[in-house]
């Protein structure tokens, strides 16, 4: 076996040193009643070439593969990924390193994360960003728990119903065994969160709004933020599509206290939903309540700049049960990938790409409207929007699937009131011909 370097002679030699007669004898401290009976029921081992052939078969079993145009976003976006990222970010010095506990031999990872933190604060208009949470959903859950810690003595959090349904499910699971309650805020006919009931809820530590929200609608964060603060609650914003902030006013400028979202759009493949990247940022005054790792700048004995993990007294290995979170391993390499993506685009490139995504979606809307379809929410959207067709869309969906186009996501599973309506997403990867092909199949 090529990963196991020991020869039989070496095993004998080493056993002699440790005073054992066999490999089995190394486990003399294990009682018989704890032992595995027989051999583990696993398939026979495969060599590299057999495995490659096997994986090719599995790949073939994917009816929708990389040659399809998948016009679904909903928390996972298809953007172009430059080859530089695959090549440089697969360097094993990055990939095969552990968490940077020995900073002098992990300055690559540490400077890389410090740069990531900085770019994220600039993107979101916040003071501090951490070194990542697992994904956008767990970032929201952590954000809500942080809001409860900061607010102290309040028992509720309110979350917009236009927040990604899976994110709300995760938040609910995290809060379930605690004494805290999560209430949902309704969505108005314009596709935006309706805050009018907030005052009657009472005891609310924090309110979470996603923008662009699950329907692609850009929330009026500035107004919402003012109302939420006026109600005495912290303002948490969430996002699934960070590219939008190449164009939109950032959450910090709109008064957000905590911002948590998904960074997959920045250089990570969809990969069936993971590896993802939970981005997490807050205002300076809350940093001691922040979950997760932080990298900070310092200097070495010669006064030379360097980077270390810092403020770890918030964390599980020091603070134990009083830690701000239990998170330990996070999404390390994904932060470097996102930072490389952000720096490859640059400020001007980010704006240009965001504008292109916006224009594609507007063009798509116009083509669908021309066919008599209704764009359900007329508020501004980013690269996603909800469509209602005159007739059952399913047959059209099937025809498009045969043309290797996955035409949107039926919202019925998530919002029964929107059954039969479809959430569409177009990014820079959707050519005009594809958009035209979809519109072309829609019966006027």
């Amino acid at each position, binding site marked *: 076996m090529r*990963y*196991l370097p020991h020869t039989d002679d070496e095993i004998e030699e080493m056993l002699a040193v*440790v005073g054992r007669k066999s490999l089995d004898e190394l486990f003399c*401290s*294990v009682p018989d009643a704890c032992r*595995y009976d027989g051999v583990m029921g*696993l398939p026979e*081992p495969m060599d*590299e070439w057999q*495995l490659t052939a096997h994986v090719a078969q599995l*790949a073939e079993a994917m*009816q929708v*593969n*990389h040659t399809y145009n998948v016009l679904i976003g*909903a*928390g996972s976006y298809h953007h*172009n990924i430059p080859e530089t990222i695959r090549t*440089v*970010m697969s360097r094993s*010095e990055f*990939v*095969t390193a*552990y968490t940077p*506990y*020995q900073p002098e*031999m992990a300055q690559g*990872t540490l400077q890389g994360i410090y740069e990531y*933190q*900085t770019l994220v604060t600039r*993107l979101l208009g916040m003071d501090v*960003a951490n*070194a990542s949470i*697992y*994904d956008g959903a*767990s970032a929201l859950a952590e954000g809500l728990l942080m809001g409860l810690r900061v607010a102290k003595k309040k028992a509720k959090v309110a979350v917009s119903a236009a927040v990604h349904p899976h994110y709300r499910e*995760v938040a609910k699971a*995290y809060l379930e065994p605690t004494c805290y309650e999560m209430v949902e805020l309704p969505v108005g006919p314009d596709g935006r969160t309706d805050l009018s009931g907030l005052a009657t809820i009472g005891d609310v530590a924090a309110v979470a709004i996603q923008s662009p929200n699950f329907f692609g609608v850009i929330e009026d964060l500035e107004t919402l933020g003012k109302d939420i603060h006026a109600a005495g609650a912290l303002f948490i914003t969430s996002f699934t599509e960070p590219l939008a902030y190449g164009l939109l*006013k950032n959450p910090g400028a709109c008064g957000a206290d905590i911002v948590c979202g998904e960074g997959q759009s920045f250089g990570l*493949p*969809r990969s*069936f939903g*993971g590896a993802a990247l939970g981005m997490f940022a807050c205002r300076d005054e809350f940093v001691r309540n922040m979950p997760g790792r*932080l990298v*900070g700048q*310092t*200097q070495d004995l010669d006064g*030379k700049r360097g980077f*270390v993990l*810092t403020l770890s007294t918030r964390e599980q290995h020091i603070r*134990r049960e009083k830690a701000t979170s*239990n998170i330990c*391993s996070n*999404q390390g390499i994904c932060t470097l990938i996102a930072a490389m993506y952000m720096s*490859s685009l*640059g400020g001007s*490139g980010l*704006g240009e790409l965001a504008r*292109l995504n916006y*224009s594609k979606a507007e063009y798509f809307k116009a083509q669908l409207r021309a066919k008599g379809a209704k764009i359900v929410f007329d508020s501004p959207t980013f690269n996603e929007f909800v469509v209602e067709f005159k007739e059952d869309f399913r047959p059209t969906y099937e025809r498009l699937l045969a043309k290797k186009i996955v035409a949107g996501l039926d919202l019925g599973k998530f919002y029964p009131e929107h059954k039969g309506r479809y959430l569409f997403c177009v990014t*820079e990867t959707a050519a005009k011909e594809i958009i035209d092909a979809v519109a072309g199949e829609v019966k006027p």
Partner: protein
Amino acid sequence: MSTTNIPGANGIIQNEPLLWEKGKKGRRGMCVPASDVPEAHFPADFQGQGVDFPDLSEVDVVRHYTRLSQWNYGVDTGMYPLGSCTMKYNPKINEKVASTPQLAAAHPMLSDALVQGNLQIMYELQEYLAAITGLPGVTVQPAAGAHGELAGMLIFAAYHKAKNSKRNKILIPDTAHGTNPASAALCGYKPVPIKSGPNGILDIKSIAAVMDEETAGIMVTNPNTLGLFETNIREIAEIVHAKGGLVYGDGANLNAVMGIINPRKCGVDVMHLNLHKTFSTPHGGGGPGAGPVCVTEELSKYLPSPRAVKEDNTYRLDYGGPESVGRVHAFHGNFSVLLRAYSYIRTMGAENLKKASQLAVLNAAYIKEKLKGTLPLAYNRPCMHECVFSDALLQEDKISTLDLAKRLIDCGYHPPTIYFPLVVHGAIMIEPTETECKEDIDQFIEVVKMIVREAKENPELLRQAPMRAKTRRLDETLAARHPCLCG
């Protein structure tokens, strides 16, 4: 050994500024496609002022990250004997499998019929992990070990709630993993610390004395963080079960015992595994990992949803019933990590996984035996995959564990885990893993012996170390006192 003749310690170290200290406005490092649609008007009310990212060329970016990578040390660079972290070799074929275009391009919200390949992999991986742990219910959703612990604690809470049993405490030994108390606390459990016995393992009496009907159960790391097998695990599990509690097995140290022990037979009800440790997926400088959770048949209904199931040769996602604790991840966890672990298990098979555990233990036992005259052993018992020494001898020369660790950097090694577990003073926790060959281990042993000699003969070499890394010793106190978290 002279300072110029240290294995692995030479090299060119380039300087490289921060991203925003280089570049020029107007440069671009990647293509933005030309637009093929009319430019749409964006409402000014919502428009931001543009993001202040540096503009860099493709070469700027590539060189930047290449240089950064060269300041790092990975498993591919050399031995990485970090105790409790299982830094084994990360096979390259796994990377290729994870990037298979058909699998990696899959959108997580596609309907089941369109993604049969990915569902088959999820399903089969669940089955393999069930076979390895003896626990038949498996979720692969948790994204890291601590995330698996949280999922496990959510299952504990759901189980007790269904039984109408109010429990607010949990037993956590001092030799358990550091994340355990924080994971339990997230579910409202107050950790009750349990002292390990004089021989480094739990004794039955200390559990019997505190286990009661207000206690949800126990979280045991086995082998524990001293590298010792908890010999009394079955008796402990019986005590916990008799009081209506559950047993959580922290599987972070599974690399010692694959195919050798059966966690189910040990009385474990819930167990997470770290695919980024035992199953060879790379750690990425801090993630992504994966922390699948395996449970007994009885607890399966509480597992997070959805899970992959197989019916009539097709695969689908099953969303479970109302008892499920729900979702812990937006989609299916770190799927790309699952692909790598799948690839590893298919490459290894049952016999080689068992052999891997045997060799991991052999390597650790060998280091323990060879170094026990040089450094004081914390507990002189048969060790599993790691061995733990104390700083008692170093202290005589006013040398700290940290000094020894930093000197190892100069000698071309990643240091072991230090100052953990807390029960050992100045702990030095060495986990070589099975993928280190005998001559590399012999060389490591020689280097540790050399450093311990240096501690007497030339202690400044240790106190000033590292001298040959990218930076000299970094001031962590300064970083914490005056936080500078972004530039």
